[in-house]
Structures are given as structure tokens and as C-alpha cells.
């Protein structure tokens, strides 16, 4: 257990010490006050489950060419294929089952969104903590870069990164991290500036603990709640941004068909009235983003100590 003042334990504990039962329970009681947020949470759980179980539950492996039949191309939702199987969400131009395509697509979109979110959080939180803890020149330098970056819209930065790095799944993740880290840095710096002045940090320093230990073992856990809120919202942003880039044809390569690529693929059939190739992947994307945002909204209220009753 870190050295904490009693009033902070409650807010920090759900995130830092999930084993402590009562604050976690209390957190849940407060969270479920909003029914919409519970629906959002359920949505998130379902989507994560679908993404994890995609290979087991999807009717076909959409990227195993042996299972595709071009004769099944562009079937409407609910139509039966040549082998008698029903394509509930229709098929794309190559006879690929859209439902399977979407399940695999969610998997890729989520993986990219979460990976970039976690990496950005690690980078941003370290930078923000450094800025807050050391202050002075370090603070000015880091926060200048953050200010500068936040004054440009995400899509423009993403375009620059893509233009500079080129395409590929790793490069898109790097681009998303580069776009997002500043949000985490600014958030955690604000919290850390307040926490830094508290007695437990002073106590830890008096024990002659190393700077690294004070920052990461003592300061960081107490700055987590706002970081979690920003994290949820940013993951949703990352998923949307990746989908946008992929839709524009400058995101993921064709070998990693995320939801954005599926939508782009259906774009050309849109004008001939074949709506389902774009519509359903878009719906999946929408449900994913809305669910995460709803959870994030409620987390902000629950984890905000100022709103505590």
C-alpha cells in the first residue's frame, strides 16, 4: 500500500487497488445510477467478447479464400447462398459474409484503438508526471510541446504522421499515439500538480526514496482516476480516427481489414443502392464508439471527487 492521506484512498483505490472490496462496490453502486451508462457498459462487454471470440463464433473465416465463393457476391441481407447458408447481413463483392467480416473488423479496430490508447497513456502520463514533478524548465518545455500539439486538430496531425511514416498497422499505431499523448500529459499534469504538494509525497521524499519510485509508486496511483476517464474517451477517439484514416485509404493496409476499410469497400456500391456493405460495419463502429463514450461520461461523474455526494 502506498502512503496516502485517508481522503484520497477512496478515489484512488478502485483503480489502483482493485482487491479492496468496499470502494469498488461503492464505485459500482454509483456507476449504475445511470441506466444509460450501464447499457453502454453492457455494449462494451458484448463488443469486447465479440472481438475476442470472433474466430469461434463467426459463420466463416472471411479471409480464408477457400471458404469464399464469388458466386455469392453482393447478396442482400438474409439471402441464402449457393450452399444453402444464410447471410444475415448480406455479402460483399467477393461473396464474403458481412457478419464475419464485421466480427473480424471489430477485432482489428479494437486492437488498434486499445494498443494506441495504452501506449499513448504510458507516454503521456510519464511526460505529464515528469513535468509536474520536476517543474521549471522541464515543465515549460513539455507543456509548450503539448500546447502546440493540441492547437492542431487530430486529423491534421494524423495526416502529417501518415505522410511522414507511410502506411502499415505499426505506423498507424505510432501516428495515433503521437496524436493522443498530449491529452494524457495535460490531464495528469493538472492532477499531479495538486498531489505533489500533499504530505505523503513529502513523506516519501523524506524517506529518501528515489525520484522514480516517488513518481511511479506514490504519485501515479493517486493521479489515476482522471487518467482513466481521459483514457476511455481517447480510445473511442482513436478507433474513430483509425476508421477515418482507413476509409480515406491512408490508414491500415488492405490485409488488416478494420471497420473503416470495410466501410470504404462498400462505398463504391453505395450509389447502386447496395447499402449493406457499408451500413452494417458503420453501425458496428457507431455502437462501439457510443458505448465507450457512455461509459466514459459516467466514469467522469463517478470518479470526480468534486461531484461526490
Amino acid at each position, binding site marked *: 500500500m502506498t502512503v496516502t492521506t485517508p481522503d484520497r484512498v477512496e478515489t484512488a483505490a478502485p483503480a489502483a487497488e482493485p482487491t479492496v472490496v468496499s470502494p469498488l462496490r461503492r464505485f459500482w453502486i454509483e456507476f449504475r445510477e445511470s441506466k444509460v451508462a450501464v447499457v453502454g457498459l453492457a455494449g462494451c462487454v458484448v463488443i469486447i467478447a465479440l472481438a475476442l471470440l470472433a474466430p469461434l463464433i463467426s459463420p466463416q473465416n472471411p479471409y480464408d479464400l477457400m471458404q469464399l465463393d464469388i458466386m455469392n457476391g453482393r447478396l442482400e441481407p438474409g439471402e441464402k447462398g449457393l450452399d444453402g447458408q444464410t447471410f444475415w447481413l448480406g455479402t460483399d463483392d467477393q461473396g464474403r459474409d458481412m457478419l464475419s467480416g464485421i466480427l473480424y473488423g471489430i477485432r482489428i479496430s479494437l486492437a488498434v484503438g486499445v494498443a494506441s490508447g495504452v501506449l499513448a497513456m504510458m507516454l503521456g502520463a510519464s511526460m505529464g508526471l515528469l513535468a509536474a514533478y520536476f517543474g521549471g524548465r522541464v515543465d515549460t518545455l513539455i507543456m*509548450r510541446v503539448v*500546447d*502546440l500539439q493540441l*492547437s*492542431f*486538430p487530430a*486529423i*491534421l496531425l494524423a*495526416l*502529417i504522421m*501518415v*505522410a*511522414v*511514416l*507511410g502506411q502499415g498497422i505499426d505506423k498507424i499505431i505510432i501516428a495515433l499515439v503521437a496524436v493522443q499523448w498530449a491529452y494524457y500529459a495535460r490531464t495528469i499534469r493538472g492532477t499531479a500538480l495538486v498531489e505533489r504538494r500533499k504530505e505523503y509525497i513529502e513523506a516519501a521524499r523524506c524517506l529518501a526514496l528515489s525520484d522514480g519510485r516517488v513518481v511511479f509508486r506514490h504519485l501515479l496511483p493517486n493521479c489515476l482516476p482522471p487518467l482513466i476517464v481521459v483514457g476511455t474517451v481517447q480510445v*473511442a477517439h482513436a478507433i*474513430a480516427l483509425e*476508421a*477515418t484514416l482507413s*476509409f*480515406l*485509404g*491512408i490508414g491500415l493496409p488492405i490485409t488488416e481489414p478494420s471497420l*473503416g476499410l470495410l*466501410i470504404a469497400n*462498400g*462505398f463504391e456500391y*453505395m*450509389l447502386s*443502392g447496395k*447499402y449493406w456493405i*457499408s*451500413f452494417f460495419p*458503420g453501425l458496428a*463502429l*457507431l455502437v462501439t*464508439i*457510443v458505448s465507450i*463514450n*457512455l461509459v466514459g*461520461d459516467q466514469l467522469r461523474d463517478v470518479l470526480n471527487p468534486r461531484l461526490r455526494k
Partner: protein
Amino acid sequence: MTVFLIRRLMQAVVVLFVMSLIVFVGVYAIGNPIDILISPEADQIERERAIEALGLHLPMWEQYFVFLQRAVTGDLGRSFAFSTPALELIVERMPATLELAVAAMGISILVGIPLGMWAGFRPDSVGGRAIMAGSILGFSLPTFWVGLMLIMVFAVHLGWLPSTGRGQTVEVLGMHFSIFTLNGWTHLLLPAFNLALFKMALVIRLTRAGMRENLLMDYVKFARAKGLSTGRVIFVHVMKNIMIPVVTILGLELGSVIAFAVVTETIFSWPGMGKLIIDSINQLDRPVIVAYLLITVSMFIVINLVVDILYSVLDPRVLLKEMKS
């Protein structure tokens, strides 16, 4: 004020320089335009002549200095693909993008402020809640997907509005605009609405928050105690105070609307700067990429500066001296 301006301008020049360096080095390090631009059937002499004409034989730092020297004089290189000056290419496309951005801004203000005021005035009514739910949706809906759905409904199924292009344009001051013709408006409506959606959600939230905050303030009580009508209190007294944050944010967002136009332009085949940059990235047309990014970055720096100044004019409590950046 003068000190503030000078400091901001110097900062702007530094930012521009750093950005140009990052973009140039980054963009020129990927791919090899020689392979793309020179036909594989060209013989060795033709190849070398083309490399020399494009300046690709020089070491990278030298290419950068040549580029910088020319950039100062307004020459941002020639497009590999179009063989026209990159700057000219972008300036030519700029009116289309600006027109789209301004129309989108207009729609989001005209729709967003009344809705936001209503939601703030009656936060617990059905209407107020519906507006807020709508704004969450507006934030969450991926722009490009909404664009596709708009095309599907209004262009394909209903056939009311065209789905691509700018339609009839009118030449004003040497630039082409669609907003002056009816046909142009029918082309503009869908993309502008698509682009406006996200900002509309933002305006609704800002206005609602401002409304709720201001309604509790003493000056509102005082105005009511004076016996002013609710309409006057809201549309004259409260409105003025709500507008400060809304104007600031909208000013800052104008830039982001221009940047996000990339997506809308691609969907609706709107021949603006955004479509140009996507095409250029795909073709590795490096002078155009660099020129686009530099122009957009400069645009941002100017917009941010203007908003900062406007802010201090609108709200005398903000002292420019106190603003660090």
C-alpha cells in the same frame, strides 16, 4: 499588446520553421518518386535528366535549403503529378474548401445555438433531453459514415440532392464559388451538413452549459427583478455572456473544420484542398504534401492568433499579458 503580438509572431515563425523541417524530412524520406514519376521504359539519359529537373539528385539537406529559399519567395515547388506550381494548385482549390467550411460553420451556429439555448433553458424537459442525446450522437457518429448515409438517403433513395461535385459555379474576384447559384447550393447542402454535424453537437453543449451557468447568476435575478420579460433577459442579457466562449471555441474550430473537410471532400468528391492532399499522399506527390501542410499550419497559427486577440476584445477581463502562449 505590442509585446504580446511580437512574441506571438516570433513563436509562429519558429513553429512554422520546425514544422517545415519535420514535414520536409519526413515526407522526403519515404518512397522514391523517381520510380513513380519516370516511366520504366525511359532510358538512362532520360532518367537522369528528369532527376536533375526535379532536383532529386542533391543531398537532402541541400534539397531542403533550396526548398526553404524558394518557400520564402512563395515558390513551394512544382507538383510531380500536375507539373504546375504546388502553391497555385492549392490556392486554386482553396475557395471550394473555404466555402464548404464557412457553410458548415453557418449551419452549426444557426442550428446549434437555438437548440443549445432551449436545452439550457429547459434542461429537464423532453425536448432538452432529446437535444442532449442528439448531441452525444453527434459526437460519436463517425463523420464519414454519416456522409455515406446522407448520400444513401438523399441522393440514392430519395433522389433530392446530388451526391458529388460542386455544381454550377460563379466566378467572383477570379475565384469560383458555388454559394451564389441555386444549383451550387443543392450540391453544397449535403457536404456542409455532414461537416457541420460534429460542430453542431459542440455548439449545443457549449450553449447549454453557458445558459445553465448564466441563468443562476445575480445579473439575471436583477434583470428579472426589474421586471424585464423573459425574452429580453435571455436574448439580450444572457446571450451576450454565452457568446464569449462560443465565439472563442468556434474561432478555434474553424481551422479544424478546414482540416476535417478532408473526409467530407473525399466522400462527396468536393474538389477542395482536402481531396487534393489525400490524392497527393497516395501518389507521393511530395511538393504538394509539403505545401499543403505548410499552408494549413500557417492558417492555424493565424487563426489562433486572431482568436486570442478577439478573446481579449470580447472579454476585457482577459489580459493578454497574462496569457503565456
